[in-house]
């Protein structure tokens, strides 16, 4: 009997518990948050649960910084997960985005309706999925990570149960997202079929040895996988879900999707193209470049006539995905650095913008319509300034991090012999001026008519009332101000981000 037991003992994979610790912190955090929220009471629901969520994210962040080490892949779960600086660097951005999202969610309607335990536990699981995805070394883990990231988000989009658009957003995201996942899975299966391996490393060695790059099965597989990832990154022509889902979802979740999901998708895209398929850059480069160009144009033109700020930011997110793709296309170390740099900057700019949107839509009867922002410069400069800085940074004005980010991307594009793509980036920026500047103009350049107590004059539209004072929601204002200040800071002193990007780029030794 004992012999039998010994034989039946399954060989478990070797696990590096130090490396997997952030994931444990997140998963454990999700369970604890869910359990603690079973207790009633305002204190538990409104203070303890968010605090525990923050603690869990903070622990993961701390562990990631503690493990920070440059260099190649280091397996943490044999053949499934591996940690390199790209995974760690992406992790930093996930945790930062999630921590900001928690702050933005504190007073959110969605948390009240869905229950704070459920909401924050779902958020933590989604972050865990992203971490798995960024660290995946294997097609199967990649898919597991993708689903773990997506399924909580489908639910989170629909958390404002009494609002039709929120439900619509959740359902739409579920259907489109599943389609994307299915496409990806199909592609992954074909890659496995062609190469006979699920490991990235094994696939990379198999290509060119046992299977040629022109193998149709492999090519179709790569194409389908790329399309599936393009869904997540909202790269045109797989972007159509983005505006509807962004608009319908509770705004803190929109902010999280816009930033963290994009980082996750690009982490995988970078790993797939710049690592596993790097030798074939000459083949996939032009195709991806065409996608980038289309994305830039579609995103910017789509944003032109939006009055809803959330839709506008969604379309702008599509355009920015196009810019980011330019860094992937060139398949160089410079491109990888530029992409990571821009992802970090993009997170800051968007979080600042979404924080202001949240602050305004909570008090204004016109929601996230442009009208809610009329005269904001007069009424609450504390909100208008972050929004202004975010808009100017997204448009790429100098003295903001957006300028440096675009500079870096164009630099990478030109150095990688894709000068025309660099020009596409500036053409996109030109179009984008029309809608970014409109937001700024609405905030600062409207007329003023009504005087509030205290002598401040505002317009009588868009839900202005003394209760609409931004001081009523300090955490949202803090997020906006901190992100905007960081955008300016990194626009003038970008070296910390450059150092980070350089460390991240060290993960792919194969790149030139």
């Amino acid at each position, binding site marked *: 009997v004992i012999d039998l037991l010994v034989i039946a003992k399954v060989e478990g994979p070797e696990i590096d518990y130090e490396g997997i610790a952030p994931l444990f912190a997140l998963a454990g955090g999700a369970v604890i948050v869910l359990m603690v929220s079973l207790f009633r009471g305002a204190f538990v629901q409104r203070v303890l649960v968010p605090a525990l969520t923050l603690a869990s994210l903070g622990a993961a962040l701390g562990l990631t910084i503690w493990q920070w080490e440059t260099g190649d892949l280091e397996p943490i779960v044999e053949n499934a997960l591996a940690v390199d600086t790209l995974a760690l660097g992406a992790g930093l951005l996930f945790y930062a985005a999630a921590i900001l999202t928690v702050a933005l969610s504190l007073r959110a309607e969605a948390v009240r309706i869905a229950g704070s335990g459920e909401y924050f536990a779902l958020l933590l699981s989604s972050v865990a999925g992203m971490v798995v995805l960024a660290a995946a070394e294997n097609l199967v883990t990649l898919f597991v990570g993708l689903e773990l990231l997506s399924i909580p988000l489908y639910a989170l989009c629909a958390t404002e149960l009494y609002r039709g658009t929120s439900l619509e957003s959740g359902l739409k995201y579920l259907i489109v997202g599943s389609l994307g996942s299915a496409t990806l899975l199909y592609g992954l299966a074909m890659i496995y079929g062609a190469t006979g391996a699920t490991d990235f490393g094994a696939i990379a060695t198999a290509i060119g040895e046992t299977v040629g790059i022109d193998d149709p099965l492999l090519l179709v597989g790569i194409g389908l996988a790329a399309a599936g990832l393009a869904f997540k990154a909202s790269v045109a022509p797989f972007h159509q879900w983005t505006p509807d889902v962004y608009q319908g979802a509770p705004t803190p979740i929109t902010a999280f999707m816009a930033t963290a999901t994009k980082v996750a998708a690009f982490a995988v895209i970078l790993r797939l193209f710049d690592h596993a398929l790097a030798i074939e850059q000459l083949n996939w480069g032009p195709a991806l470049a065409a996608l980038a160009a289309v994305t830039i144009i579609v995103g910017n033109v789509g944003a032109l006539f939006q009055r809803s700020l959330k839709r506008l930011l969604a379309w702008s997110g599509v355009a920015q995905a196009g810019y980011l793709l330019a860094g992937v296309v060139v398949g160089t170390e410079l491109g990888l650095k530029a992409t990571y740099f821009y992802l970090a900057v993009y997170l800051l700019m968007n979080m600042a913008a979404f924080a202001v949107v949240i602050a305004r839509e909570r008090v204004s009867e016109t929601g996230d319509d442009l009208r809610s922002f009329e005269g904001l*410069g*007069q009424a609450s400069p504390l909100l208008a300034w972050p929004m202004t800085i975010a808009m*100017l940074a997204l448009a*790429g*004005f*100098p*003295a903001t991090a957006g*300028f*440096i980010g*675009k*500079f*870096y991307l*164009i*630099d990478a594009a*030109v*150095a990688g012999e894709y*000068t025309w793509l*660099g*020009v596409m*980036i*500036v*053409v996109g*920026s*030109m179009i984008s*001026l*029309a809608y970014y*500047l*409109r937001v*700024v*103009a609405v905030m*600062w*350049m409207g007329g*003023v008519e009504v005087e509030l107590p205290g002598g401040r*004059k505002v317009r009588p539209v868009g839900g202005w009332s003394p209760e609409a004072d931004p001081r009523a929601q300090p955490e949202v204002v803090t997020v906006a101000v901190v992100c905007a200040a960081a955008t300016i800071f990194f626009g003038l002193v*970008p*070296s910390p981000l*450059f150092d980070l990007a*350089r460390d991240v780029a060290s993960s792919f030794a194969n790149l030139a």
Partner: protein
Amino acid sequence: MTIHLTIVIFLPLAGALVGAFLPAARSHWGALAGSVGAALYAVVMSFDFDRSVDGLQYVTDDAWISELGIRWSLGVDGLNLWLIVLTALLWVGAIVYAWRAERFRHRQKPRLFWFHFALAETAVLGALCAQDLALFVFFFDLMLVPFFFLIGQWGEEGRVAATTKMVIYTLVGSLLMLAGAIALGVLATPEGGDISFSLAVLQERTVGEGTQQWIFLMFAAAFLVKAPVFPLHGWMPDAYRAAPLPVLVVFSAVVSKVGVYGFLRIVLPVLPDASVHFQEVMLAFAVVSILYGSVIAFAQDDTRLVVGYSSIAQLGFILLGIFALDDKGAQGAVMQMVNHGLVAAGLFFAIAALARRADGSELLSRMGGIAFRAPVLAAMLLILAFANLAMPGTANFVGELLILFGTFEDHLTWGLIAAFGVVLASVYMIRFFIRAMHNRQGPGVQSKEACLLEIGVIAPVVAIVVALGVYPQVILEGTEKAVAQAVPHPETSTIEAGPAPAGEGPVGPPEAYNPEDFQR
């Protein structure tokens, strides 16, 4: 003596930031102190500037964003010295005017106004001092932000549309320039070398002629829109009509010069082959602008637009001088940048004074008949008008003459057509003066003499115009060497020129205009 250009650049902004912490009613003191400090510093610099030295002076060269090869590199030579002084002085005048004039005194959010005003000065000074291409682009684009707000928030009717139009127009050019600048930096980097945007380095590293050409077009787009030059001036009438006057003074006088200055500082030295290649095209732009601007200026009723379209013509002259690719022409262009900056500023201050007497209207048809009651104002306007039409005895005459001399040398036809513009200038300027000062008194016009504030801002400008007319050498002396370095000479750089015939010395650049010869 060491002059720290960084301090000159950031003094205005620092002053405004201090002002932001003062009570709103006193916030102008911060901006004023900062700009006066910068102006004093700049004036000291102009006296300290060594005219006999070749190359840049007061150089600051530190690493800024080393990962991108962007350096904090500043310097002064004959090309930008006087533009810097002009900028610093005009900003003081504009700030004093914006602070004291009753029409602008009750503004919303004064602290923000002064902040933007000072940020604009910092950006312009930065663009003028920059010796690193990326740094130049940085400041060049940054200039737009404060002007976007200044026009959009404190402007006249139609300001939001006007300012948006202006920013989009100019940024289309500027963003192309950004791409061109990065491409130039990357493509010029030799194998294994470090990327650099330093103008001195770029001047030595060369890129192929085809590359030079498309990069040239991108730079030209930025600078021609900024200037503006026909047919890229579409933003100008709206923006000029909508801008608040103190803003318009500095905008028209200085910001438009940064565009043409960019040609001299960057395009000619760094892209010499392309400059030669596109010479005729640019000359055509220049000449068409001169004629178009002059003719349209004649037909305008709005005084701002008379000066605005006259600026197009004047900038056409400057462009002509630059792309004559001749030292004399370029010297004339540098001189004319300063002259026109002064005259435009003076004219806009005068327009403000005229409008105060014409019941707030800035239309020529509602002005007139005040010269007898306001002789001082009339005299000052007359001097400015004469300067603008380049009457002999003014520095503008010297500038335009040099430009035309430079053009006649190799491009007689263009020069002759352009010379026609000098005649047209006198037509529209004299019409402007007569309609504004003489004729029947307009409805609602009250004749009164210039007040202290008006004299205070216009008289110094007029005094400098007169002084330069008497002694134009002060500008010419410093420019000679700088211009000779910047201008490529087609006859020496083309290959067909072949070896010089025996018996003759090597073909050198044509002699620069020596100001010693010009003794009146």
